[in-house]
């Protein structure tokens, strides 16, 4: 994958991710989906062929605008989405050498996420769907992340186990079939990505925490400290990261008070090891007990190199086939939404023009009320 980047005047980073292997020619029977994503601070559009081939993948990232506020400001994000969306959609079409006429369906993330941000994508997608007469498909953001695995792993088919880890989610999911999910474990408190951000801030690495800790950890000793790995007694697949986070923060405070020098790299490495070991052991255990020999990872934290390495090693040892998206497909993007939408499209799922944004849309729970239109 090749990434073209351009910083615009307002600080927004415009990216075009190119997959050299995709083929823009449409044969009969091919399904082309225009996908739109605006659930947080990335405005994104993509064209995906048959759920697996990315013809274009455009991301307009506002992250630089939010950093000075210490996190994403929903109102600013929503305003930027309105400004950037048309440009992203146009770029997605032109990079794929297509027009809206060639598209078979319009897909959009309708939850979960920031409601004001989601509404921009949802409103645009509905308008384009209606004006072109093309079917409309609503996609669950996390199902999109899971489906990012289909893009580069052409052989991956359900059923499989998927570990979804990002700034807002830590889920262990059995993907029973396309679009059929069973959540077998989730976090009781902080999401894994949240813990990374907080610890990174505390040891002075700054934002975004995931990549910073990942990098620092490579130079540290993962066995320098033993931080606790919480097990939930009555729910063996659930996660808890707040205890681990507190214990790291306590250690840092203590060291500071006693005037000890803090080894950033050692703390990062030990903390990362604790998180990664819990994630990997739960995922491997789930594969064994549920009897699946395929395991995928998804979400922003899935690009963590420590997680990738240990998961790969453990999968090998347990004869489980391991799947993971390229790091660039682990972040929020629209290509993954197009991948998820394809399988919904094939099943005949169509959304009505009354589709609304659902900020707390549960994973796997199909929101039926917007399925009014029969086109």
């Amino acid at each position, binding site marked *: 994958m090749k990434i073209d980047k351009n*910083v615009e005047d307002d*600080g927004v980073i415009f990216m075009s991710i190119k997959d050299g292997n995709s083929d823009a020619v449409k044969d009969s029977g091919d399904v082309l989906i225009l996908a739109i994503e605006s659930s947080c601070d990335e405005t994104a559009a993509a064209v995906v062929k048959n759920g697996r081939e990315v013809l274009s993948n455009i991301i307009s990232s506002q*992250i*630089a605008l939010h*950093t*000075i*506020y*210490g996190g994403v*400001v929903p*109102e*600013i994000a*929503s*305003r930027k*989405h*309105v*400004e950037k*969306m*048309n*440009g992203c*959609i*146009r770029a997605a079409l032109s990079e794929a050498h297509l027009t*809206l006429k060639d598209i078979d369906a319009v897909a959009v993330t309708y939850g979960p996420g920031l*409601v*004001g941000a989601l*509404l*921009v*994508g*949802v*409103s*645009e*997608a*509905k*308008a*384009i769907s*209606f*004006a*072109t007469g093309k079917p409309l498909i609503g996609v669950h953001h996390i199902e999109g992340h899971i489906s990012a695995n289909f893009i580069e792993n052409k052989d991956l088919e359900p059923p499989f186990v998927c570990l979804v880890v990002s700034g807002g989610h830590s889920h262990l999911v059995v993907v029973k079939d396309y679009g059929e999910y069973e959540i077998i474990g989730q976090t009781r408190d902080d999401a894994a990505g949240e813990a990374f951000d907080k610890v990174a801030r505390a040891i*002075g690495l*700054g*934002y*975004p925490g995931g990549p910073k800790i990942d990098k620092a950890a490579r130079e540290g000793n993962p066995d320098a400290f033993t931080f606790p790995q919480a097990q939930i007694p009555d729910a063996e697949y659930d996660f808890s990261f707040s205890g681990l986070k507190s214990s790291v923060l306590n250690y840092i405070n203590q060291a*500071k008070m006693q*005037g000890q*020098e*803090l080894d950033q790299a050692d703390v990062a490495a030990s903390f990362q090891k604790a998180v990664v070991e819990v994630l990997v052991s739960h995922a491997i255990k789930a594969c064994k007990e549920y009897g699946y020999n395929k395991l995928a990872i998804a979400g922003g934290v899935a690009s963590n190199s420590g997680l990738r390495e240990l998961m790969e090693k453990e999968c090998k040892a347990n004869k489980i086939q391991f799947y993971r998206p390229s790091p660039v497909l682990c972040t929020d993007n629209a290509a993954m939404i197009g991948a998820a939408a394809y399988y919904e499209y094939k099943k005949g799922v169509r959304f*009505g*023009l*009354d*589709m*609304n*944004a659902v900020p707390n849309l549960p994973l796997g729970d199909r929101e039926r009320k917007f399925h009014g239109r029969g086109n």
Partner: protein
Amino acid sequence: MKILGIDTSGLVGAVAIADGDMLVSQFSVQYKTTHSEILMPMLEDICKKIHLDLSSIDAIAVAKGPGSFTGLRIGSATAKGLALALDKPIIPIPTVDAIAYNLYGVEKIICPMMDAKRKQVYTGLYTFVPNTPEGKSLERTFDMQVIHEQFATSIEDIATRINELGKPVVLLGDGVPAYHDEIEELLKVPFSIAPMHQNRQSGAALCALAMQYAKEGRMVSSDEFAPEYLRLSQAEREAREKGTGETTDREKRKLESRKTPGIVRIRQMTAEDITDAALLEKENLGKEAWTQNQLATALTRDDTIYLVAEKAGRIVGMCGVQNISGDGEVTNVSVAGDCRGEGIGYKMMKQLLERGRGIGIKDYTLEVRAGNEHAIKLYERLGFVSEGLRPGFYDEPKEDAAIYWKCRQEE
């Protein structure tokens, strides 16, 4: 000319189709349902009922704001999506103007008030001025005259402005029932309230005004259109309130330094410098440059100092240090390519090292590409001493890092 009009700026959700001077259809709902769920179905219904081929539309008019932030975005994103798919222009209509246009021909003062919460209204002042078309004796046409264009203000302020005009006024909009008591108390001129068929956002009034705009060519492409909120987001407002003094000072300095082009000013980096500083880093360091994010994060910390060098209003240098338990790690040093050899790096660093003492830094350290003679000369002039190499530290091209320290006792 066929126009599709959309207004979702307030509680009213309205869609209308106008063709020439005929209102072909309008669908309006003033109810608590969300615009997102009803706007497109209303349009779908209209299209079915009047057998409308959407591609026959010439332009899409939309209430561009002010109004409910979310409401404006639903209307705007919908208009933009339709305009993109149909390849048609957008006619952005000021919301308050469109509400005033309900009262076409009224020669009194017209004052729409939209409830903007926190005892504020989105409002404006208008009146209609009669004209006699050429060759006619009794027929009149009216031009809407904008006395005060739409803005956000307090009830007290708009009441004062109305009182100053000293003429009877017609009030309309959802701000009227919301602030009725205040209005009654503050107004010193005769006032009336428009009846319900004329007193809210209306797709018909929007389309009628849009026809005028279309004649005057006031249209934009779907990509460049964005709503006008008339208010910053809360986060921006708070940030601005905190930094008001800072901003004006900075603007003053910027103006001054433009007047005196040769002078380089060293000052603390602010959030507004981040974009320029990141670009400077990028020019000098390519892939190893700090991003805007990293700079922004570093700026918010209280154990860092970041300085910029400003010349003729342009950021030509930046440097920063982080205090790690008494050791000051110099994280960034960049000077614009065309400004090297002017001593900017030295001046900037000298200040940085001095200011660092103020936040408890005792010793300073930094890493530099072992082959960067220019930079090394600068650091040695500042009293840094080489303490060893970190092999293969830098990528593209692979190069060793020279580690430099400047310790207090050596000064």
